[in-house]
């Protein structure tokens, strides 16, 4: 393939993924979050804009687009403005290795990298750079505290997540996401590896800074944490990054543990979407059910519980694979 075709494909792919994430993950995700939180709290949620409040987020986005950009005095303007780009960009990069389904011409994936899982871990670790930049650039103590907390939290939870990823890679014998989905032909890895699945879900909740791990933006302590000072479309881009990252994590969990696009009768893409939204629902259910941790409990839980458990799980898996079932 000539290089300009590759380049054109990359540009078109980026545009498609960006609009897909913006519409499906961010706009629909926010609506779903508000509806589900409403139902859990015995409310109705948004109801007035469009049928059953379906157009509420579109109205909100249009409102945010028109708002003024406010930059705090003494803020570091360059860092303040760049941070907005880093967070959604890092979230978008995750989607390169997620297989959404399969067609007659092969799996529906942007690029089946042979380091897929490693790539996912690498790009999701870039988000924290953007969060730290936002926290520091705002020149606001709450934002800075939020940024520092996020760095501590995301670095701590990357380790159990990485160990869970390695466990799955061991079972499949590959880092490629398509190979991992194909290896679940007979048994989902979520069934074969419930411990790794649980660890991945907990670490994913922490990586996307959601309750019970949302110390980064705990509104009762830090206003809105690292994005306290952002207004208008910049605020919306942070939301986009956050929801994009959450959908990417859920998509990766489906790929690694729930058999990806595999399922009977229904078309593969539909299976993927059903599993994806089931996991998104679990994330939202957890968010509106559990209270928030304290920061020391949060870090202690990762280092003293999750990391030892995932290390033991990894060793046991390797032992079973090599010795018991060679």
């Amino acid at each position: 393939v000539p290089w300009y075709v590759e380049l054109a494909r990359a540009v078109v792919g980026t545009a498609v993924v960006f609009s897909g994430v913006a519409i499906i993950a961010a706009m629909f995700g926010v609506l779903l979050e508000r509806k589900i939180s409403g139902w859990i709290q015995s409310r109705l949620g948004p109801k007035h804009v469009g049928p059953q409040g379906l157009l509420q987020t579109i109205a909100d986005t249009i409102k945010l687009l028109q708002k003024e950009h406010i930059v705090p005095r003494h803020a570091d303007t360059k860092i303040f403005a760049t941070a907005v780009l880093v967070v959604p960009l890092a979230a978008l990069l995750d989607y390169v290795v997620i297989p959404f389904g399969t067609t007659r011409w092969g799996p529906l994936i942007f690029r089946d990298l042979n380091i897929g899982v490693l790539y996912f871990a690498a790009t999701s670790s870039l988000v924290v750079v953007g969060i730290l930049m936002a926290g520091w650039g705002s020149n606001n103590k709450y934002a800075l505290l939020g940024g520092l907390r996020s760095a501590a939290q995301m670095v701590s939870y990357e380790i159990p997540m990485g160990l869970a990823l390695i466990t799955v890679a061991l079972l499949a014998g590959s880092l490629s996401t398509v190979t991992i989905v194909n290896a679940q032909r007979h048994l989902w890895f979520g069934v074969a590896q419930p411990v790794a699945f649980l660890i991945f879900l907990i670490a994913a909740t922490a990586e996307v800074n959601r309750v019970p791990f949302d110390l980064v933006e705990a509104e009762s302590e830090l206003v809105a944490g690292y994005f306290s000072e952002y207004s208008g479309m910049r605020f919306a881009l942070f939301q986009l990054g956050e929801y994009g990252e959450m959908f990417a994590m859920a998509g990766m969990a489906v790929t690694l543990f729930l058999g990806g696009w595999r399922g009977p009768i229904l078309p593969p893409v539909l299976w993927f979407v059903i599993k994806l939204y089931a996991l998104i629902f679990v994330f939202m259910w957890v968010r509106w059910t559990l209270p928030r941790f304290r920061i020391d409990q949060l870090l202690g839980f990762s280092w003293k519980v999750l990391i030892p458990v995932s290390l033991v799980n990894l060793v046991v898996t390797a032992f079973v694979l090599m010795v018991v079932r060679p």
Partner: protein
Amino acid sequence: VTGEAIAFYVLAGAMLASGVVVVTSPNIVHSAVALVPAFLGVTGLYILLHAEFVAGVQVLIYAGAITVLILFVIMLTQGGTGLQFPERNEQGVIGFAVAVALAAMLAVGVTHTAWGRGGGTLPAYTPGAIGQSFLGPNLLLFEGTSVVLLVSLIGAIIIARKEE
């Protein structure tokens, strides 16, 4: 001009530009953040060389972890702002001279090397081959590195617990 050459020059330009910001910026946080495009540029070069595993590790460790570590240290040590001690490079002339000398030596070295072309073919699945090499011919190096990492882990724990 091939696509690879264009990609190389674009990446090299981006890396040079961010490198200049890293060494000249008076604001240490700007320097730290400007490291990210430089690291990502190196990642791009690895991808051009079909070293995908190394590229993934480069992003994970350098762009993801090392940058965060540097930013974290700056924010914890300088009152959270990183602006208490503006960076003034008092050795600019010496540094520039050293850099020019190094660049000249590299240029001479690069032009006088007979590049070993066609050294072999890539395995179909590079991560597996890298693992085999770590636990095969390069086992001693691998174990040596793990001892170094263990020592630094224990050292970090000892330093962190000193107050008790």
